[in-house]
């Protein structure tokens, strides 16, 4: 709930939903929760516009509401975390496409666009959209099967249902357990041929379960980390461990309940043909994973061929540490990173000792230490010594790293740069709005002409309305925007890491 977060949220809302939703959103962010009347008053917008914006925010689950004190009107509240998720949507789609193929991608894409949708309407809309697309070969039957498997896998869940409490005018949304639906195909095909979805009586609504995707991302990060640290076979072993973990303990648990190594061995035997090395050296791999795997896995017992547990909480901590190391290196150079690592290794260290151990010139060392302190990467703890013989009370200053606070600071940095990126992209876009508009118009005209089969000469004439210098500028702008967009995605990856780390309470 920081100032930087507010700025990012506001910028994202502007990018996705326009100025008015942005105004309403940032107003809600600053004031916490408030009813419509108050929003109208503080933003100075027309009531109908505020209502429209609130509808948008509620539809995309970016805000919630609850009955206010008098039970007649609702108080609205922004959910900043969900606003940040808007940037992660492409990643969800990529995940779907790579894991389940294009049908799953289409389903999730449509569902993200609709926010909440009933299964039958969803299926019919997608099927009609891609009816003529021979390449993809989308049939409603395949879509239905994919939908059911996605629901079973937990990527799609039932949307909360409104309940009207007695004496209250405002509904409360109650989450419901997801039941795998039984979709009849005949009415869907009928609706498709008639092109009328209003006939479908389906009032079970679905939405995307972000949490399930986040679990996938977490697993991927852990497997990738192990793969890079040891090798692919170890990564595969980590995957098995995680799969077992899902069966035995809550998905986000900081430390899983003990897993039996025997089962792992059996899994590996099953894969003997594909990964002979893993099958042959499974015990050695487990040992390496334990000793050199960054603490992702810990041996908790020896019964039953060895008991292992996966420590996701510690993994998050290790990864955040690595990210911080990297940040310090990139921002302040490798010498500062050396000091940072030294302080981390010693936990609490005096300034003199830093100078002695970091092997740097005194002045430079001091400067870098202060710089680290200034950027909140390290903190200082004064320890007063009792007044001794000298008469002067001398204080000792101990430098140390409060990981939780440093991660907060780094997260703020991410927010700040995300905001900067969004702002920069926006100003580039407005500065070249006219040219981009022209390009778009020329493209649509040319496209239309191609469809009509007009001679190439005429098409060239139209294309030449964009002069070479204009084209050069446009290319430049496109490149810039692409870079900024990529930066957004990268920043989001880091934010995910920090969010994962903050999930576990500070020790």
């Amino acid at each position, binding site marked *: 709930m920081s100032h930087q977060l507010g700025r990012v949220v506001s910028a994202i809302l502007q*990018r*996705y*939903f*326009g100025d*008015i*939703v942005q105004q309403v959103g940032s107003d809600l962010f600053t004031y916490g929760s408030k009813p*419509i*009347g108050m929003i109208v008053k503080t933003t100075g917008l027309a*009531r109908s*516009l505020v*209502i*429209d*914006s*609130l*509808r*948008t925010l*509620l*539809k*995309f689950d970016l805000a919630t*509401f609850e009955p206010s004190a*008098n039970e*007649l*009107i*609702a108080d609205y509240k922004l959910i900043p975390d969900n606003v940040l998720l808007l940037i992660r*949507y*492409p*990643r969800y*789609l*990529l995940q779907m*496409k*790579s894991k389940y193929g294009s049908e799953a991608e289409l389903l999730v*894409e449509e569902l*993200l*666009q*609709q926010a*909440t949708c009933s299964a039958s309407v969803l299926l019919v809309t997608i099927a009609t959209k891609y009816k003529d697309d021979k390449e993809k070969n989308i049939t409603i039957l395949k879509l239905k099967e994919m939908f059911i498997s996605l629901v079973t896998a937990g990527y799609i869940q039932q*949307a*909360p*249902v*409104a309940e009207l409490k007695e004496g209250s*005018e*405002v*509904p409360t*949304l109650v989450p419901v357990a997801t039941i795998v639906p039984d979709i009849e195909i005949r009415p869907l095909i009928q609706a498709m041929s008639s092109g009328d979805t209003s006939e479908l009586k389906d009032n079970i*609504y679905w939405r995307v379960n972000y949490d399930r995707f986040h679990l996938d991302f977490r697993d991927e990060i852990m497997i990738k980390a192990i793969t890079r640290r040891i090798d692919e076979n170890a990564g595969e072993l980590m995957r098995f461990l995680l799969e077992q973990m899902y069966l035995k303990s809550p998905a986000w648990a900081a430390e899983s309940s003990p897993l039996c190594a025997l089962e792992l061995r059996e899994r590996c035997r099953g894969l003997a043909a594909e990964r002979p090395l893993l099958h042959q050296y499974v015990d050695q791999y487990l040992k390496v994973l334990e000793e050199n795997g960054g603490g992702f896995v810990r041996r908790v017992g020896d019964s039953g061929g060895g008991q292992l547990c996966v420590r996701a909480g510690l993994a998050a901590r290790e990864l955040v540490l690595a990210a911080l190391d990297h940040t310090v290196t*990139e*921002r302040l*150079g490798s010498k500062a990173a050396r000091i940072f690592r030294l302080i981390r290794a010693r936990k609490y260290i005096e300034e003199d000792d830093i100078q002695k151990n970091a092997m740097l010139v005194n*002045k430079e060392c*001091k400067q870098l230490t202060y710089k680290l302190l200034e950027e909140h990467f390290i903190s200082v703890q004064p320890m007063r010594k009792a007044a001794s013989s000298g008469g002067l009370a001398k204080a000792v200053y101990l430098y140390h790293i409060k990981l939780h606070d440093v991660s907060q600071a780094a997260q703020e940095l991410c927010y700040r740069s995300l905001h900067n990126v969004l702002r920069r992209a926006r100003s580039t876009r407005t500065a070249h709005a006219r040219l981009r508009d022209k390009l778009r118009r020329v493209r649509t005209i040319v496209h239309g002409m191609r469809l009509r089969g007009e001679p190439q000469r005429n098409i060239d004439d139209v294309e030449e309305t964009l002069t070479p210098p204009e084209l050069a500028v446009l290319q430049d702008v496109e490149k810039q925007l*692409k*870079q900024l*967009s*990529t*930066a957004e*995605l*990268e920043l989001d990856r880091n934010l995910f890491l920090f969010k994962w780390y903050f999930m576990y309470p500070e020790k």
Partner: protein
Amino acid sequence: MAGRGRGRGGSNLSFTHDQLQALGIARGDNTSQVLIPPPLFPKLEAKPLPLTSDAATDYMLIVKDLFIEYLHESPAYVKRKTKTDGIERYSDKYKMLALDAKNNKVLDCVWANMPVELRPQAKRTQVSNRKRKFADQDAIDKRLLTLEKKENQDDTDETVDTAENEKAAKTQEVNDDEEIEDEQEEEMEMDDGTDYANNYFDNGEEYDEEDDNLDDGPVY
């Protein structure tokens, strides 16, 4: 000796030469005072690493742009009603038509999950239709004609007494009655609207809505 405990003659206002040297500032290091604010965009000290660009990133960028484009086209992207700048243009008509068509679309939500105040109120478009029906010159003419005929019939009733005439008048009357009944029914339906149209309570929000016009300035 009082007051001379530490240092003499105000020398404690600044560091001594030795103290400065201990802090790492040599003679002549003293820079002149900076009177200008720091630059708004300071130069980067280190060049940032290049961003990854592979097929997956490209895919995500395309998907992202498509999603944003979709949102901008959808009614979720809230815009003000189009206003003209006072200069009439020929193209205005088409522009406004296109924009307003977009504006008038209502976001497709699950209304049951929304508070009552956000649900779309049943719009009274029928009212305007009805008015137009009366404003229609033909309708007025027709009505006047029937009334005139009726009057004439009343007059002629006394003098001429043909069965045919009476029959015609009767059917006319019946027709008229039906028409009136129809209208009444229509009115009833209209007032009903849907459940959403009914405001069961007064939440007091309308209280200060009248104040909107105060901006125009006081009335002298």
